[in-house]
Every structure is written in C-alpha cells, then in structure tokens.
C-alpha cells in the first residue's frame, strides 16, 4: 500500500468540479483508492463519498492506494490535485 498527504488549498475546498475530475480520472485503476479526512475514510472512486466528506480549504487529507497499479494511481491523484488547483 502507498499513501500520501495533501493539504487542500482551493478556496472552496473539494467542490464538485475538481472532485468530478479527480474521481473520473481514477475509474481505470484496479487498485482500491481511499480518501481519509478527520478519521473518516471513503472510496476515492465515489463522487458521493468524496463530496460527503465536505473537505474545506486548509484541511489535510490522506490518500491511500492498494493494489497492482497503486503507484500509478497515487501519481494520478497527485497530478489531478495539482492540475485542478486542489493542492500544490
């Protein structure tokens, strides 16, 4: 399993548009990918799960990937986080 922490810098937190981009980019991976915030863990391939966390600006989240393509999946998360302006 690989994991990485991100600090959300987008003023609106993780809102619908970047969340859609993030979730949409992960369906191709076989690994389980989770997003953890304040002790609550959700499936990062689930838009409803991600949105339900209501992650606000300035929060720290942990993304974990587990499976055969876990490295690639985590790299994808980092890339989309940056390109969508969610995190640096």
């Amino acid at each position, binding site marked *: 399993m690989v994991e990485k922490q991100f600090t959300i810098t987008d*003023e*609106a937190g993780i*809102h*619908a*548009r970047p*969340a*859609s981009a993030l*979730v*949409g980019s992960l*369906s191709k991976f076989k690994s389980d990918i989770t997003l953890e915030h304040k002790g609550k863990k*959700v*499936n990062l*391939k*689930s*838009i*409803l*799960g991600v*949105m*339900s966390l*209501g992650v606000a600006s300035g929060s720290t989240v942990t993304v974990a990937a587990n499976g055969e393509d876990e490295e690639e999946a985590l790299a994808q998360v980092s890339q989309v986080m940056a390109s969508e302006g969610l995190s640096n």
Partner: protein
Amino acid sequence: MKKTLSGIAASNGIAIAKAFRLENPELNVEKSTVTDAAQEVARFEAALNQSTSELEAIKERTAKQISDKEAAIFGAHLLVLSDPELVGPIKEKIETEQTNAEYALQETANMFIQMFEAMDNDYMKERAADIRDVTKRVLSHLLGVTIQSPSMISEEVIIIAEDLTPSDTVQLDPSFVKAFITDIGGRTSHSAILARTLEIPAVVGAKEVMASIENGTLVIVDGLDGHIILDPDSETVAEYEEKKAQYDRQKAEWAKLKNEPTVTTDGHAVELGANIGTPKDTAGVLENGGEAIGLYRTEFLYMGRDQFPTEDEQYEAYSSVLKAMEGKPTVVRTLDIGGDKELSYLQLPKELNPFLGLRAIRLCLEMPDMFRTQLRALLRASVHGNLKIMFPMIATLDEFRQAKALVEDEKAKLQTEGIDVSDSIEIGIMVEIPSTAVMADTFAKEVDFFSIGTNDLIQYTMAADRMNENVSYLYQPFNPAILRLVKMVIDASHREGKWTGMCGEMAGDEIAIPILLGLGLDEFSMSASSILKARSQIGKLSKAEMATHIDRILAMDTSAEVADYVKANM
C-alpha cells in the same frame, strides 16, 4: 379574466404565448419481493444504461449549445450514475433482501440525499438536488413513466413549473420555448443564469404560478419588469406586442455593437467600461461589449467575513479578473472602507460625520500593513493583464505621494524576492473631493489618470448627504458647478497628456453623455447592462458639435436649465 402576478425578473425580454405546465409525475415506489434477483439487477442495469446515454446526450448538447462549464454539471451527474458507493449497495440490497430495484434505489439514494441535506453548507445542500435529479431519471425508466421533457415541446409555449432542474433548462429549445416562469428560485439560481445565456425571458420566484395558471392559458411574460399577465385582453396584448417589438429592435441594434469600438460620427473614439464588485461580474462586462473595467470595487472582498482577506486570496481575485479581461484596461480601486461602510472585524471609533471621516485612502494610510497586503496582491497580479491602480478619496497631493510611495516600496520588495511585477502599471486617483478637482492641474503632473466619482463629488460639492431625503433636491448632476469641476479635471489631464474617466452613475446617463463627450471625457464606466445603449447613443453624436454647446451650458444658472437644453438641442 385578466390577472397579474409578479416575480423576480431573471432574464430580459417579453414573450406572449400559451402556457405549458411542466409537471413532475408522481413516482410512487412500493416495496415488493422479487423471485429472480439476478433478473432484477439486470433490469436496474438497463435503466442505468438508458439514463447514462440520455445524460451523455444532454451533456454533449449543452457543451455545444451553451458552454463546457455548464456541461460539467452533467459530467458530475454521470459520475453519480456510475458511483460504486451508490450502485454497489443498490445491487447488494436487491440480491440480499430480494427487493425490487425501485425500492433499493430510492432507499439508497435517500440516504445520500439526507446526508447532503444535513450538511451545514449551502453548496453541499444543493448537491442533494443533483442526486435527486439523477435518481428521478433512473426511477422513471424503472417504472416505465415518461418524464415530461422540455425537449419534446414542438409549439410555441411559455413553460410554467414549480422549479426547473439544470437538465430541464438546458433542454429548452428557444425556437419553441418563448419564456419560463417558476414558483421558486432567484436571480442567481442555475436556471435563471441559463435563461440569460439562452436569451429566453424568465420570471422566477413568482410563488403562485403553478396554482393559478392552467395549460393553454394565454400568458404575457415581461422579463424586464418581472410581470406576468394571465388572460390579457386584446388591448394589453397589443401594448405588449409593441413593447416586445421595441425591445427586440433595440436589442438587435445593440447586439451589432457588441464587438464594435465606440466612435462618434466625427471619428472620435472613447472607451466604454463597466463597474464591477466581484470577479464573477467580469463575464457580464464582456458579454455586454465592455472595452474596459473602469472601476473594480475591491471592498466586497473584505465584506461579509470575519477576518481580512489574505494576500493570496486577493491575488486570486485580482488575477482572475485581469486574465478574463485579456489585456483590456482594468482599473482596480484600492480599499474604500470606513465611515459608513463597516467591517465587523475592524473596530473603528464611531464618528459623528462618517462621510467626512476616517475612510478610504485615509484609513489605508493609517493602517499601512493592511494596505501593503492589498498592494502586494495587486502588484503580483499585474503580470496577468493591463492593471491600473486607483486610490479613492484623495484630497491632497501629499496623500497621493504617500500612497504611491507604498506601491513603489512593495514593488521593489517583490522584485528583490524575485517576483515579477508589470512595468506598465498606471497609477491614478478618484476625483470626488472638490479640493482635488480644483487642484487637478497640479495633480495631473504626477498621476497617470483621473476617474471622476460623481456621486461623491456631487455630495461634497453641494454639501448634501446623499442618503438624506430632506436634501435630495441638492443631488444635481447637471448643476453648472459640477460640470465646471468636471471640465477643470478633464482639461488639466489633457494638458499633461493624461486621461480622465468617469465611474459614477452619471457616466451612463443619457443626458450627461452628450455633455461629457463635448467636454472631452476619455473613458465612461457604468453598469455593464448600460454599455451597449451608451455605445449606440455615442455612435449617433458628433464630438465637435457637442463641444460647441459647452460654453453656453457652463454659463447656465441651474441644473434643470442644463437638462432641458440637452434634451432639446444635443
């Protein structure tokens, strides 16, 4: 019987057509037991697939006809349809509890809807509506119920609905749907924004339309004033047909001017800009053919919150405006707060005379740290466009010099930090205090531009509180005293090769425009919706001819005399 209702005017225009009620059928879900769970799962998957292809079509159509940004919401809807945390539990429920797909779907979706509705954040609460919209679509396929779709309409109608979902609104075909009226919603609700993009007249928040309008009733929708007239008599229909024709003619004429420069009949070009309060207003400036932003009021960034905006927050706001304007002049006014405009987190002593007190530049010079933060954010953003910085309420040259020195100081600091700052930022002042207008010749040697703020200039020149109704007769924009001051400012700037703009209400006023043109005003900044009208008016005037009237106007006795003269002769 003729009857009139009213609501919020959400999108301009007038329409006269028969009412079409867009009703949501009752989707009654009952729990039942199925014997073949696998078959039930397959039925659920078929409904999902059908919904997916419909949404994909809507998304594609929206991207083509409206914008990618509007289409993105359907991208999110599609993700909900394929969400493993929604689809998985539904299938599981069908399999383990042997229940029908409708029930499993509704139960699972409701759990999410309730979760979002319980969040203490309006944005997240609205996401519940997205889940409802998607669930309704799948449910209707499972139940075999046809949901009325606005895309099926093939005759000219006015849609009456309790509310329109985003997917309803994008399916409105403007060649058949002449307008819509809803019971709920506001000017900024999604359907209202789309109505303006599609240029369909709309009145929203009209409360009782579903209760009072039947299918086929003749309805007049006045999206200019927010009026709805049911069963109008022939006289009223004729009246509105005339109003509609007039509006359509005007709109067609103005629309042609959107990408045109603003030029008088004798070939003199002026710049028409808009006044904005937030970055969101920028789109409206461009849609209305604005050539510039003549006034960006930054105080809105500071209001409605409990602490100062950070440098980065400000940088984001300023950059987004500058980027969107793509090199068009953007005049940003530094913080104009204090006096009557209060900030909860900034405790200022109560003043007897707030309009004459510690406000605007006076406050910024008193609190240099706060001011420096704003200046740094502006300077960093300057590389993204054509930034001009403007200080409000300047009364003396000394104030201007102090403020400008702070700009230079922050610029030097940023450059030593290796941060790029534009080299061509103009620095100017608002002229709203008579002392500054009188001394304009001296100021003109040091500032890059003037922008005349007429509301305050009138209030300070006439010594009349503009909030006090008892002295409102002294609000006289055409009083020769004001016009002479305006002339002094414009002339002083031109002698030094500088320019003068105006960002008060007067700049968009039909009577003021011929005078200002004659006086040689270079830039007119007004509310975005007035730009095309002003461009049309200026295009019919000759600057040289307007200038011949000026001496006579400045020698007149009263404001009323000037206004009458302009109406009759200019």
